């Protein structure tokens, strides 16, 4: 029954318009090659014309007065770019936290491999500002940065190795409400290039409690998350770091960057205040 309904649901999704647009894009004529002998000849001809025109102009014309030229001022504010935004974020001093922190929640793992979390002293929150975007506007076209070759070699990576690569132990840092169980896979298969560099470096840290779950996807390739942070969304501030949060009923999704790590956090069945606590625990 579920299978039939899910199939019908997928079959009901219209694809005709998307197919037409994609095919038009694939069939766009390629730009003409501009190198080779023809380019050299055209460049030579253009140079001759420019030289000739310049000689004639200098001979027949006079120098224009300075006030005939229009000066275009540089914009008053620098253009916001992901690189500038990231630079601003990483350069900002992190002030001593005055937030309220809850005692670290003891996490019970499905396979008993982790030690108990130590209890951490808490301080009152005073600097966070949470603004939630409607989930219905979470829809934008993909970045054009998929140009890199995606297919590489698949490498089995143990979580310890990934922890070293990331420079942070998410499982130890995250603070969740009581009862959540860590079901994160301890091995993942990541794609690497010929130099053994990660082409995709995302890891999903998943915690479940009955119907509720929290998923934290981490990456050091933060460019695309930065695009959310500079986009037209309401921004939240968590530990003086920008975050973009979407929410609908009991579904929350948040994007943030901290210490050169990009985070995509998804929660279901978690209160916004608990999601905020989760974000604070991993962004510090």
């Amino acid at each position, binding site marked *: 029954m*579920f299978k039939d309904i*899910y199939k019908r*649901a*997928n079959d009901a999704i219209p694809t005709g318009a998307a197919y037409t647009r994609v095919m038009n894009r*694939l*069939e766009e004529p390629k730009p003409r090659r501009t190198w080779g002998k023809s380019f050299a000849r055209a460049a030579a001809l253009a140079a001759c014309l420019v030289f000739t025109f310049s000689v004639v102009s200098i001979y027949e014309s006079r120098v224009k007065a300075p006030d005939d030229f229009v000066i275009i001022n540089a914009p008053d504010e620098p253009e916001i770019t992901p690189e500038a935004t990231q630079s601003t974020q990483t350069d900002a001093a992190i002030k001593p936290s005055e937030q309220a922190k809850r005692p670290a929640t003891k996490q019970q793992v499905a396979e008993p491999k982790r030690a108990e979390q130590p209890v951490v002293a808490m301080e009152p929150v005073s600097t966070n500002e949470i603004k939630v975007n409607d989930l*219905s506007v979470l829809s934008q076209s993909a970045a054009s940065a998929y140009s890199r070759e995606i*297919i590489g070699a698949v490498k089995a990576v143990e979580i310890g190795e990934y922890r070293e690569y990331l420079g942070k132990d998410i499982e130890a840092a995250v603070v969740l409400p009581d009862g959540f169980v860590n079901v994160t896979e301890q091995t993942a298969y990541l794609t690497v290039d010929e130099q053994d560099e990660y082409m995709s470096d995302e890891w999903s840290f998943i915690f479940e409690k009955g119907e509720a779950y929290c998923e934290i996807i981490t990456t050091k390739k933060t460019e695309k998350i930065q695009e959310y942070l500079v986009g037209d969304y309401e921004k939240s501030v968590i530990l003086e770091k920008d975050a973009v949060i979407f929410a609908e009923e009991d579904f929350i999704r948040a994007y943030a960057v901290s210490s050169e790590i990009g985070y995509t956090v998804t929660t279901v069945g978690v209160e916004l205040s608990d999601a905020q606590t989760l974000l604070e625990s991993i962004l510090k």
Partner: protein
Amino acid sequence: MLKNDKHDIIEKYFNMVYKLALAKTCDANVAEDVTGDVFLKYMQSKKEFESEEHIKAWLIRVTVNCSKSFFSSSWFKKTVPLEETLIAEMPEEESEVYLAVLKLPEKYRVVIHLFYYEDMAVAEISENLGINESTVRSQLKRGREMLRTALKGEFGNV
């Protein structure tokens, strides 16, 4: 003009790639761009494919890697609400099931989609995604458990 054989492949697997991208990204515009990128790579690829099955597996792998989560560009201003694009044409029963799948964690959505919509076996999913069969089974199991809870036992067995 696209070569006939590559055009045939694109026509044959467009729906598969597009709907997998949808399941992965939950976003019609992102999925369309991902689909275009996948087939652009296919067109430009100099890879020697041994068979059509090899092509299919390659397309699935590239689609999954291309559509890594919800990253999208803020410079493309056309925004369309999730509900309008994906489920506008669906009856209520189908939309409820489809949205329940979309709310699963990303990696569960992919295996659930490949298993239930593409009718792929665990071994096939494992090979196409480059992950262990045990991981696929684990992800299927957890995905099913979440769906059963979300759908509250309706719509038959998951």
